[in-house]
C-alpha cells in the first residue's frame, strides 16, 4: 500500500492527503512510499494474525515462564549447553524473511524499523529489541526474574565458593567475566552472537563503576553490590500474581520452594558481596536497557494523552447549535401556521386509510411497538391519527413490544386515544428480540396441533385470524424483520408500517413489491394524513420549525461546498486518514 510518510514526524498518511494528520505539516512534494513490497501479503493483514511465537508478549511470557529459575540454579547450565543453540534462533530469521507467518502490518513495522531506526514508534523499538533477546532466550532457559536469578547465583556463590570457582575455571573461553568468572547466560549469548570475546572488547568494556544512568545492568550491579532492591520487577510480579487465574496457579512458581500462588520478595543480603565485578560493552548495555525498558513499560503507569479540542471548532459547533435552537424556538413561538398546499399524496399513504375504511366491524388487530423513547414524539404524532381512525371499527387490539420501553410507550400512546376504553386490549408483553418475536408469533398463529403439557408460550395470538398488523418502528431493520417473516409465513394479513422518517426510504421497495400494504414514514406523510382528517393539531406549528431546520441544513451543505477548498479547523482528521 502506498503511503505518504510525513517528513516531520514520520506518520503515515493516505495518498492524496495535503497535510499530515498528526502534525499538520504540509505533504506537498512528498513521494508516496509503497510499504507493502509483496502485494499479496496485504491480504493477510488481519487474517492470519495469530498469536505467533515471535512477538513481544511471547517474549515476556518466555521471560516470565515459571519454574525456570530452578533450572538455572540447579541444572540450567547443562540445559543451555544441551540445547541446540540455533534450534529456534536459526529458524526464526528464515520465517521472518519468507514472511509466511508474519502479518503484513507486522512486517511493515519491522521493515520501517530497519529502514528508519529513528522514526519507528517507541513500542516497535522495544518489540524489536525484545524479539532479538527472545530469539536468544529461546535457545536457553527462560529466566523469570533476573533479580531472583542473580540473587540465587550470589547466594549459591557464597555458599559454594569452590564450585563457583570451578565453574569459572571451566568457562575460560567465555566473554564476560565476573571476578569469579561467573557470568549471566544472556550476556554470554549476546557476545557469542556478536562474535566478540572479552579480549576483543578492549576499551569498550566497562566496569560497574563506569556505568551511568538508569540501566538494567546498573541496577543489576547495584543489586549485586547491595545498593538496590529489585523493587520494580517485584512490584510487577505482585500485580501479576493478583490477576492470575486459579488454573494458572498450578504452574510452577517463580522460585522453587516458594508457596504456590504467592510471590515473595527475595531476601537480599544487604552486605555487599566481595569480588563481584560486571563488565559489559556499550552495545550490551544498550540491548539490556531496551529489554529493561520493555519489561518496565509493561506495568508502567500510562498517562493519558489529553484531548485537544480546538477553539475554532468548538465555537463553530456551539454557534451552529445556538443558531439552530434559536431558529427552531422562533418558529415554534411565532405560532405561524403554514398551510400545506401540496397535493402530492403518495399511494403508500392513502393505502392505510383505504385499509381502515375496509376493515370489518369488530376487527382485531395486532400492534407491534418497536421504537425507543427517543422517537416517542415523532412516532406518537404519526400514530395517533391512525389509531384514532381505527377506533370506529376495531374491537380488539393485541399489543406486543420488542423494545424495552415499548411496554410503557404503548400504554402511554393508547391511553391518549379517544374511545380506547371500549376496546379490548391484550398486552402480550415484551420480547427482547424482534426476530424471535416475529417468527414465533406468526408461527403460533398457524398451529394445527399442540405439544402435550408444553409450557405456556411467551406470547400467543388469538385463535381467529387477525384483520391486520400495524408495526410502529423507529428503524428500517425493525420493520424489515416483520416484513420478511410476514411474507414467508403469514402473508394473508395486511401489514401496515408507521415508521420514523429515517426508516422510510429503505422500505419503499417492499411496498412496491406488494409485501407491505401501506407505509407512513416522512413528516410530510403525517401532515397529509392530518390534513385529510381535517384536524389541525400541533403539527402545523411543528411543521414550520421543521422547515426552518431543514433549510438550515441545506444552507450548511451549500456553505460546506463553497468552503471546500478553504478548510478550517482540523477537518483533515475527520476521516482519520
Amino acid at each position, binding site marked *: 500500500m502506498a503511503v505518504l510518510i510525513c517528513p516531520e514526524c514520520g506518520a503515515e498518511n493516505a495518498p492524496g492527503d495535503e497535510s499530515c494528520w498528526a502534525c499538520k505539516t504540509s505533504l506537498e512534494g512528498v513521494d508516496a512510499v509503497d510499504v507493502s513490497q509483496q502485494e499479496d501479503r496485504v491480504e493477510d493483514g488481519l487474517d492470519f494474525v495469530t498469536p505467533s511465537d515471535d512477538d513481544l508478549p511471547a517474549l515476556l511470557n518466555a521471560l516470565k515462564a515459571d519454574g525456570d529459575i530452578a533450572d538455572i540454579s540447579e541444572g540450567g547450565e547443562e540445559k543451555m549447553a544441551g540445547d541446540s543453540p540455533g534450534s529456534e534462533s536459526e529458524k526464526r530469521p528464515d520465517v521472518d524473511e519468507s514472511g509466511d507467518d508474519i502479518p503484513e502490518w507486522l512486517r511493515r513495522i519491522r521493515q520501517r524499523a530497519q529502514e528508519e531506526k529513528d522514526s519507528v514508534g517507541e513500542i516497535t523499538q522495544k518489540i524489536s529489541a525484545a524479539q532479538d533477546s527472545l530469539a536468544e532466550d529461546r535457545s536457553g532457559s527462560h529466566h523469570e526474574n533476573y533479580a531472583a536469578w542473580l540473587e540465587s547465583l550470589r547466594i549459591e556463590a557464597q555458599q559454594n565458593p569452590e564450585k563457583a570457582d570451578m565453574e569459572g575455571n571451566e568457562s575460560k573461553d567465555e566473554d564476560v567475566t565476573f571476578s569469579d568468572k561467573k557470568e549471566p547466560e544472556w550476556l554470554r549469548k549476546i557476545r557469542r552472537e556478536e562474535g566478540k570475546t572479552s579480549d576483543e572488547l578492549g576499551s569498550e568494556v566497562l566496569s560497574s563503576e563506569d556505568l551511568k544512568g538508569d540501566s538494567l545492568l546498573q541496577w543489576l550491579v547495584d543489586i549485586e553490590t547491595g545498593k538496590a532492591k529489585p523493587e520494580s520487577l517485584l512490584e510487577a510480579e505482585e500485580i501479576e500474581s493478583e490477576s492470575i487465574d486459579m488454573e494458572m496457579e498450578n504452574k510452577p512458581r517463580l522460585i522453587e520452594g516458594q508457596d504456590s500462588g504467592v510471590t515473595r520478595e527475595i531476601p537480599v543480603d544487604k552486605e555487599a558481596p566481595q569480588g563481584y565485578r560486571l563488565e559489559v560493552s556499550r552495545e550490551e548495555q544498550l540491548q539490556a536497557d531496551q529489554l529493561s525498558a520493555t519489561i518496565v513499560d509493561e506495568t508502567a503507569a500510562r498517562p493519558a494523552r489529553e484531548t485537544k479540542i480546538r477553539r475554532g471548532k468548538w465555537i463553530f*459547533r456551539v454557534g451552529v447549535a445556538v443558531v439552530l435552537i434559536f431558529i427552531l424556538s422562533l418558529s415554534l413561538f411565532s405560532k405561524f401556521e403554514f398551510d400545506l398546499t401540496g397535493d402530492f399524496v403518495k399511494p403508500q399513504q392513502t393505502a392505510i386509510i383505504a385499509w381502515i375504511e375496509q376493515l370489518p366491524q369488530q376487527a382485531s388487530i395486532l400492534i407491534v411497538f418497536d421504537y425507543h*423513547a*427517543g422517537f416517542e414524539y415523532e412516532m406518537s404524532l404519526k400514530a395517533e391519527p391512525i389509531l384514532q381512525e381505527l377506533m370506529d371499527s376495531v374491537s380488539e387490539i393485541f399489543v406486543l413490544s420488542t423494545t424495552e420501553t415499548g411496554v410503557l410507550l404503548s400504554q402511554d400512546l393508547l391511553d391518549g386515544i379517544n374511545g380506547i376504553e371500549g376496546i379490548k386490549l391484550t398486552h402480550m408483553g415484551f*420480547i427482547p428480540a424482534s426476530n424471535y418475536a416475529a417468527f*414465533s408469533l406468526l408461527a403460533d398463529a398457524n398451529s394445527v*396441533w399442540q405439544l402435550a403439557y408444553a409450557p405456556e408460550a411467551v406470547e400467543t395470538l388469538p385463535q381467529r385470524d387477525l384483520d391486520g398488523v400495524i408495526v410502529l418502528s423507529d428503524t428500517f431493520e425493525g420493520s424489515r424483520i416483520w416484513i420478511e417473516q410476514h411474507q414467508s*409465513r403469514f402473508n394473508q394479513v395486511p401489514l401496515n408500517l408507521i415508521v420514523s422518517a429515517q426508516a422510510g426510504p429503505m422500505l419503499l421497495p417492499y411496498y412496491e413489491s406488494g409485501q407491505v400494504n401501506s407505509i407512513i414514514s416522512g413528516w410530510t406523510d403525517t401532515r397529509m394524513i392530518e390534513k385529510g382528517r381535517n384536524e389541525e393539531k400541533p403539527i402545523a406549528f411543528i411543521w414550520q420549525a421543521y422547515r426552518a*431546520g431543514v433549510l438550515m441544513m441545506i444552507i450548511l451543505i451549500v456553505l*460546506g461546498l463553497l468552503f471546500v477548498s478553504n478548510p478550517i479547523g482540523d477537518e483533515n482528521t475527520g476521516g482519520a486518514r
Partner: protein
Amino acid sequence: MKKTLSIIFAVSTGVIVLAGYFFKDQLNPILVIIIDWGVLLLAVLGLIGLAYLLKSHVLKLFHREKGAFFSIIVLISFFIIFITGLAASMQNPFFRQLILNVQIPVEASLMGILAVTLLLSSFRLIRIRGWNLMSIGFLVSVILSLLLNLDYFQSDPGTLGRELIAFWRSLPFVGARGILLGMALGGLVIGLRILLTLDRPYSEE
C-alpha cells in the same frame, strides 16, 4: 465434547427452524418451544450483561477511580428503579412516569444533539468524502430529498415537472433494492456458514 455438543445444538436447532419454513403447520408447536427457549436465554444474557455494568461501577467505586461519583449515581438510580419496579406492577402509572420522564427527555435530547452533529457533518461532507460519484449522488440526494419534503416544489398532474419529481422520488429505492438484494445474499451465505459450522463464533476454537 463441548465442541461436539455446541455443533449439535447449533445445527439441530437451525435445521428444525429452517424446516419450519417448509413444513409450517407440522412444526409450528416445536418452533414455538424452540423460540421460547431462545427468548429465555436472551433474558438471562441480558441480566448477565447488566451484572457486568453494575460490576464495573462497583469496582470504580471500590477503587475510588476518577468519576466514582457518577458510579454512585448509576447504582442509586438502578436500585431505586429496580426496587420500585419489583414492588409495583408494570402498569403502575407512577412507575411508568418515573421511567418515561427520564428516558424520553434524555433519549430525545441525545437525538437533538445528533441533529446538530449531522448539521455539522453535512458542512464537512465533501471535505471528508472528496468529489466522487458516490458523494455527489449523496449530496444531490440529501438536498433534493429535504427540499421535496418541504413541499416547495409543486406542479400540476400530467406536467413534466410532476413526472420529474415522481422519477426522482423513485430513485432512492432503486439503490435500496440493490442493497436489499445484496444483504439477502450476504445473509443467506453467512447464515448457512454458521449452520454448516464453517463459522463457529460460539466455539472454543
